[in-house]
């Protein structure tokens, strides 16, 4: 069945004798998330065994928080990847977004909500610019966003130093609107005695919305199509350019949400942060079954990828290992996940 799309009601094909009853296993095998799900189970069992602290509820909440901070971005990045493009500027765009809100509010002594709104507009404009440059030049998005990555990374530092004389923004903790904005972007919620960061819920909401868009709306159809075969998509009337620009703006939206979390979780923003994170987002998406060439993948898969990421990140700490090993594990997992995905996809193609 369609790997690009879930099939909640396969009853249509029911009566055909050539179609052997598809077993549950076969249906699972054809899901893009399968490799990631298996990986998640393995990683979970592994750290449960080697780290006693791992299974505690508070630890789990910490793991979820780590997963959410990357998972939010992985939602936008995975949709973009399904649409056939990369965004290397995603990591520093989070910092840019946070800096815009913090610097503008502080310098102009505005209510922080105004800064939040300005940051929203600026960040989405950056996403639009990435998309527009891609569409207008026809250059690979890899190159375009590599350029914007460096420009944003430089501007983050340059502007912050010029404005504050420092590499970090001034603290906005005592400004108007801080507590209400913090409640929205960076509060802790009490769930059955365990405190869970609100980003976890933002993350789950984004995954749900993205999944709905992908599988149940016209836009979702277009996303798979522009990633899978852009020329064909254009020929049958899909607005390829608008879809791609929209996807870059989707990444920007996620960057804005993540940026606002930074501002209201820490009150000051380090202008050098975010560099390198773009690869973590891409890793989450790839572990989650998104095809590097586009046209295939899921938001749920990327969420599982982010969950694996969170478990590994914190699991190593709970196991009291040197955290330097985290990147080694991440690389190994990426390799493993892509191989599993490859095998799964081959099996699936043969099973037809």
């Amino acid at each position: 069945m369609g790997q690009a799309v879930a099939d909640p009601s396969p009853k249509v094909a029911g009566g055909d004798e050539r179609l052997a009853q598809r077993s549950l296993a076969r249906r699972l095998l054809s899901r893009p998330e399968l490799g990631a799900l298996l990986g998640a189970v393995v990683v979970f069992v592994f750290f449960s065994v080697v780290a006693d602290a791992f299974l505690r509820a508070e630890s789990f909440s910490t793991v979820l928080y780590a997963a959410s901070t990357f998972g939010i971005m992985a939602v936008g990045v995975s949709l973009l990847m399904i649409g056939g493009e990369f965004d290397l500027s995603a990591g520093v765009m989070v910092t840019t977004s946070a800096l815009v809100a913090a610097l503008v509010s502080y310098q102009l002594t505005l209510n922080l909500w105004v800064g939040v709104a300005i940051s929203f507009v600026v960040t989405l404009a950056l996403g639009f610019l990435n998309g527009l440059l891609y569409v207008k030049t026809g250059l690979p998005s890899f190159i375009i966003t590599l350029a914007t990555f460096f420009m944003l990374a430089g501007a983050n530092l340059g502007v912050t130093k010029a404005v504050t004389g420092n590499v970090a923004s001034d603290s906005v903790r005592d400004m108007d609107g801080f507590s209400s904005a913090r409640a929205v972007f960076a509060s802790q919620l009490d769930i059955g005695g365990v405190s869970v960061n609100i980003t976890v819920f933002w993350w789950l909401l984004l995954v749900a919305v993205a999944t709905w868009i992908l599988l149940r709306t016209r836009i979702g159809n277009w996303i798979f199509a522009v990633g899978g075969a852009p020329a064909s998509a254009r020929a049958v009337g899909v607005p390829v350019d608008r879809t791609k620009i929209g996807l870059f703006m989707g990444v920007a939206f996620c960057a804005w949400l993540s940026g606002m979390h930074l501002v209201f979780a820490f009150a000051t923003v380090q202008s050098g942060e975010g560099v390198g994170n773009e690869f973590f987002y891409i890793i989450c998406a790839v572990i989650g079954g998104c095809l590097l060439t586009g046209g295939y993948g899921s938001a749920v898969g990327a969420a599982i990828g982010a969950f694996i990421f969170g478990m590994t990140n914190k699991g190593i700490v709970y196991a009291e290992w040197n955290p330097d090993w985290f990147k080694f594990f991440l690389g190994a997992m990426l390799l493993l996940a892509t191989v599993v995905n490859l095998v799964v996809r081959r099996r699936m193609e043969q099973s037809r």
Partner: protein
Amino acid sequence: MSERVPLVRLDGVGKNYGNIIALRDVSLEVHAGEVACVLGDNGAGKSTLIKIIAGLHRHDTGTYEVQGEPVVFESPRDALDRGIATVYQDLAVVPLMPVWRNFFLGSEKRKAWGMLDVDFMRRTTKAELLRMGIDLRDVDQPIGTLSGGERQCVAIARAVYFGAKVLILDEPTAALGVKQAGVVLRYIVQARERGLGVVFITHNPHHAYPVGDRFLILNRGRVLGYHTKDEITREDLTSLMAGGAELQQLAHELESTSRTVAEELTE
């Protein structure tokens, strides 16, 4: 007949790809209830011509009118909105996507809240393909797993389903078996009888002649002949298309080589 406004009219249309002249000074009329056949060798410019009609490429010279109104299409969407649907030679499908999603791609059927009407689209795809004699196992399988002929039929069924006024078919019979080719030709006749204008591109004069009303023969981007059916016989069409003299010489050459091969074998 000439009093009626044609659905599609090209006049002196030309198209360059960089410094390659793909089409030069081509004129064509497509009337409602008529089949216009475009014939020509490989690279003659047939696909280029229909890509202009379909809004995929813009013509460089000449005029393009739809129902008497000059148009310059920005994208295939504009052509589709005018009821011009196309089956491309490369089929324009997305291999990894399910058959039903491909069928409705770009023209999705929606319910409230922008939700896709998945049930309707699955059912329609299954039914429309069945009408073409393709009994698909599963409309949820990726279209890339279908056979070439099956994929062709999906592309045709899709264009027929969405082609409100003009249906363009780029070599739709090329990949098909005898039975399916017959089905496609019958489809073309049906579409004509329903009052659609059809542009039918083919290499095969034996497919073109029985269904066509007008014949445009292209050669290296130029018009070699443009005839209505009563002006031309099947034999003329065949020889015009293949360059009759060349074909006879080829027959000769083949005969002599096969003779030498036969002699070698008997030695």
